[in-house]
C-alpha cells in the first residue's frame, strides 16, 4: 500500500455535509472540533433594469469543497510538533497524531494551512483525520466516504487516483498546494477554475 489520499469531486458535490457530520459522529464530537469541513464559495454578477426591474444574472455560480486532511508530503503539523506526537507513516503516508504524546499546545493547529488538526478542548489533545485507518483495515470505507450521497468523495492509493482523475490539488478556497503538497486529487468544479483570479466570496457566515 503506497501513499493514501482523497479524491474530492467538486463537480458532483452539492455541499450537503453528510461527510462532515459522519466524521463528527465517528468521533462522537459535539460542537468544536471539525475534523472534516465543507467550504462553500460563490460568485457572479447581476444587473437590474431600473425601469422594468428585470434581473439579469451573469456567471452566477457556487461550489463546495470538502476537506479533512491532505496527509501531505511536507506536513506542517509534523514539522512543528514539539513532542513528536504527529508522524507520517513511511508506508501509507498517513499523517496521524498520537493522543498519548500530544500535549495540546496547538502548534499544529496554527501551522497547518488547511486547519486539519483540531484541538479537542475536553480532552486537551489534538485530533485529526486518520483516514479511518482502523475501519479500512477491516475492509470498510472511511465514514465520510461511506455516507457521501453523491459518491463525490473517494479514498485510495494516490497514484491510482491521479492516474484516473488527474493531478489537480488546488481549488478555491483551499490554500495553494505548493506549501505542503497534500495528497488529494481535486476534480475541479467547472466554475471554480474560472475564478482563479479570486473573484469569489465565501458562501458562509464562517461559523
Amino acid at each position, binding site marked *: 500500500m503506497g501513499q493514501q489520499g482523497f479524491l474530492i469531486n467538486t463537480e458532483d458535490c452539492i455541499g450537503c455535509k453528510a461527510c462532515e457530520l459522519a466524521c463528527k459522529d465517528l468521533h462522537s464530537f459535539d460542537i468544536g472540533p471539525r475534523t472534516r469541513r465543507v467550504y462553500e464559495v460563490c460568485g457572479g454578477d447581476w444587473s437590474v433594469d431600473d425601469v422594468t*426591474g428585470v434581473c439579469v444574472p451573469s456567471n452566477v455560480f457556487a461550489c463546495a469543497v470538502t476537506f479533512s486532511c491532505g496527509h501531505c508530503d511536507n506536513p506542517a503539523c509534523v514539522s512543528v510538533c514539539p513532542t513528536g506526537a504527529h508522524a507520517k507513516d513511511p508506508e501509507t503516508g498517513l499523517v496521524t497524531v498520537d493522543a498519548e504524546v500530544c500535549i495540546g499546545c496547538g502548534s499544529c493547529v496554527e501551522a497547518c494551512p488547511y486547519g486539519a488538526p483540531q484541538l479537542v478542548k475536553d480532552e486537551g489533545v489534538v485530533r485529526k483525520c486518520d483516514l479511518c485507518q482502523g475501519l479500512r*483495515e477491516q475492509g470498510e470505507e472511511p465514514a465520510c466516504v461511506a455516507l457521501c450521497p453523491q459518491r463525490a468523495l473517494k479514498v485510495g492509493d494516490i497514484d491510482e487516483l491521479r492516474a484516473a482523475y488527474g493531478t489537480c490539488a488546488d481549488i478555491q478556497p483551499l490554500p495553494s498546494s505548493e506549501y505542503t503538497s497534500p495528497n488529494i486529487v481535486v476534480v475541479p468544479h467547472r466554475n471554480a477554475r474560472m475564478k482563479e483570479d479570486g473573484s469569489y466570496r465565501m458562501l458562509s457566515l464562517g461559523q
Partner: protein
Amino acid sequence: MEEMKSSALERGMSRRSLLKWAGLATVGSAALGATGCVGFNEKTPISDTGDVDENPGEWIPCSCWVDCGSKGFNKALVKNGEVVRLGTDKSHEDSPDCPQLRGCARGRSLRGMIFGADRIKYPMKRKNWQPGGGEAAHGELRGRDEWERISWDEALDLIAGEIERILDTYGNEGILLPGGVPQRMGDVEIGRLMYIKGGCLEQTGAVSSGAWTEMAKLIGMPEEQNDRMDMRSSDVIVLWASNPAWSRAGLPNYQYLQCRDAGVKFICVDPFYTPTARALTDDYIPIRPGTDSAMLLGMAYVLISQDDPSTNPLIDWDFLERCTIGFDADHMPEGADPKDNYKDYVLGTYDGVPKTPEWASEICGTPAKDIERLAVLLGSTERASVIMSSAPARTGSGAELCQNLMTFGAMAGLIGKPGCCCASDGGHAGFQGLSYSLLKGGQQHAHLRRETFGCPIEWINNPLENRKVNVNQMWTSIVDDRNYVGLDGNIYENKVHMIYDRQENFLNQGPATMKGIEAYRMMDTVVAQNLVMTTTCKYADIVLPVTSPWERYGDVTKGMRESLLWFSQVVDPLFECKSDAEIAAELADRIGVDRQVLQPKTEKQMVIDLVAAAQVIKEDGTDFENLVSITEDDLATLGVEGTPQEGRIPILDFKREGIYSLERSEGDKYTSVALKSFRDDPEANPRKTASGKLEIYCQAAVDKVHAFGFKEIAPSPRYVPPVEGYEETFSNWDEKIKGDYPFQIYSLHIPRHIHSNFANVPKMREAFDHPLYMNTLDADRLGMETGETVLITSKWGQCLRPLLVTETIMPGVLAMGQGAWVEIDEETGIDKAGCMNVLCGPNVTTTGYQAWNTCICNVEKWNGEPLTPDYLWDSREVFKED
C-alpha cells in the same frame, strides 16, 4: 412512577454521562429475536484508536422518523451498552442502478437529538399555572414562567381533570389538537383517545403540497413524476423551484447525477441558484417568488404565437384535443362561457392584455428572452420534463399555479410520454416512493395513517371532522374574533379553551406564530408531549416526556420506490419517558375510555402485522407478493400472534438487516411514466375529474373553492397577484415606487433542520448557517455586509438574523430557512432565532392550504446587541443534571 426509572440509573451510570452521547442498549438481544449477529456485512468494529475491539457490538437498524420527504437508512452500533456510532446501508454493493440507501447529515446527527442535553426528562408543570381556567391559569406567563418537576400521576391526573372540565363546560370543540395534517408521531394515540371520547377540534389545511392537495384531484393532474430509470431518457429536465440538495437529501440528487451523465440538459428556474444546480447546470433562470403563473402564461403565449403545425410544431394539438377540455373556445364544456377559455386569456382577446414574455418579465423579474427560450425549448424537444417542487403552490395564488402548470405541460407535450413529465414532484414522489411504489406497506414518520397498507387496527374518525379549523384561521379565530369557516364551509364559533399538542410544533411551524403565542396565552390549559423542548412545549402548562422511536419496539417505512425499512429498538426509554401509546392508555383509564377500544393490539403486534402485510412487486412487474415468509417458530421467537405465510425473505432476516431493496436495471419491468395509460387511451383510463380529462377549464375547482368559503377562483388558468406578493412591495406599481415592505422574502428548507426537527442540535447549528440571504446589489445599496445582524420586519412580526451576502439569490428577494425555534425577546417582541412564521401571516387561501412560503418585509441595520452564533446558545435544558 418508580418503575419508569431509567435502567441506566440502576446500572450506576450518571445521568450526565447518559446524555453525553450514551444510550443504553435494550436488555440483551431479545429485541432481535436472533442471536447476536453483526449483520450488514460489517466487519469487526474498530475502536477510536484503530485497534480491533474484542467486543464487536451489535448493529441495530435505527429509525429516522422526521418528515424530510426523503429517506435514508441508518443503523446504530451498540457496544458495551452505548451507541458508539452510526452506519448506513451496506446491504448490497453500490452502483448507479442499485444505489445504497445512504443517510444524510441529519440522520447522522440523530444522537444529538435523542441523547442531547435538552431531552425532556420528567413530567413538569408551569409554576404559576393552576387548573380550572381563569386568573389562576396565569396564561400571560406562558413561555416565560418557571418549571416544576411533577410525578406522572400528578401530571396525568391534572390533564385528565382539565379534559373532563373543558368537555363539561365547553363541549368537545373546547379542546384543540393542532397538527394532524398529515398525522405524525403521537397523533393517532391522543387523537384516537379524543375521538372515542366524542371528538375534538383539529386543524385542516394542506401543508407540504400546498394547493396541489385539492387542485390535483379537481383538475386531474397527479403529483407524480416518472420512474428514475425513465428520467434518464429525457433530453431536457427543468428543475423549477426544486432544490433536492436541501429539501430531499440523499438519493434524489444522485439520481439526477445519473440523468446528467446520461446526457440530460438541466435548467434551473428559481429565485436562488441552488446547491442542486451546482452539480447539474449553469443554465439558471431567475424568477421572483409567487410569480410562476405569470411566467407559464408568458411561455404559453410564445407557443401559441409561434406554433405552426407543419413548419414549427410547438404545441401538442393531439393531446389537447384528446385529453383536455377548455383550451380554446371550441373545446369548452357545456354551459361554460366561451370567453372564459384559456387561449383567449393568453392572447388578451377580451381583457386587452396579451400575456407576452415582456408582460411576464416585469412581474417575474425574468429576462423576456429567457422566457421565450425556455418555452421554445420545451415545446420543440421530444423528451422534456418540468419538475416543480410544491413550493410555488404554497404561495398566495397557488391554486392558479396548479392550473397553469398542468396547462402548459399539456400544450408543450410534456405529459404521459417516456422521458417527459410535467408535475409537482410531490416531494420528488417518484424517488420517494409514495406514489406507485414497488413495495406496499409501512408507516410514515414512524406512524400509522388511515391509508397505511395493511393498517392493523380499525380506523376511528373524529366525530367533529367537519368542524376542523383551517390553519390560517386557527389562531385568529381565537385572538381576533371567535368565528371560523369549518371544513364543511359553515361558520363556527371557536370555543377552544385547551390545547393538547402531540409531538407537533405548529405554534412554530404554522403561519402567524405571533398570533399563535397570543392564542396560547388565552387558553385555560395547554399540554404538550415531546422529546425536546420545542416551541409548543415552551408555551405549555404541562409537558410530558416522550420516548423516541429508538426507545420503542420498532417501525416500518418505505424508502424511495424500491426499499422497505424496518427499524428496531436501540435503547431503553430514557429517564421517565413514556411512549405516546402509554400516555394515551393512562389518560384513557382516567377519562373513562376503554383501553381495548383505544389499543386493540400491542405496539409489537401492530409492527409485526404491518411487516406481515407488506408486499413487493413480482419480477414480471404485474402483481405483488408477500415480502416476508413467516413460520410458527418465527412467531414464537417474536412473541406475537399470526399466521405462517410464504414470502420472499424470512421475517427474522428482514428484522436483522432492517432493509430490503429491489434490484433495478435499465429496461426492467418496474419503470413507470406518469399518466401514460391516460394519454394512450383517455376513454379507457379516464382521470377522476368531472369530464374524465385534464380540465384546463374546471368548474369543479370553482365550486370547491367557493365551498371552502375563503376566496374565489376562475375556472381557467389566470395570473392573480398573490397576497403579499411582488406587486405589494410597491406603494405605486405604475411608477414603481416601493412601499413599507420593499422586499420579498421566502422560506428555504435549509439542511440544518427538517422543519423544526434537529433545530436544537448544536452541531447542526455549527455545521449549517441559518442566515438571511441577500443579493450583493441590495447589500451594497443598503451598506450591509456578511455577518452583521439585521432586523427583518413584516406585517406580522420581527426577526433578527446574521446577514449572508451572496450572488446566489436574485436582487430584491430575501430568503431564510424555516424551522428555527422561535426565541422571543419579551422586552422587544423580536424573535432572535429567525423563525419564518414570525414573519408569515395568517392569509387565507382558495383551498385552505398554507401560503407561508413567501411574504413581504423590510430589512434594516440592527443597532442593538449583535447576535452571537446560535450554536453557542444555551440549550433548552430545563432540569440540569448533576
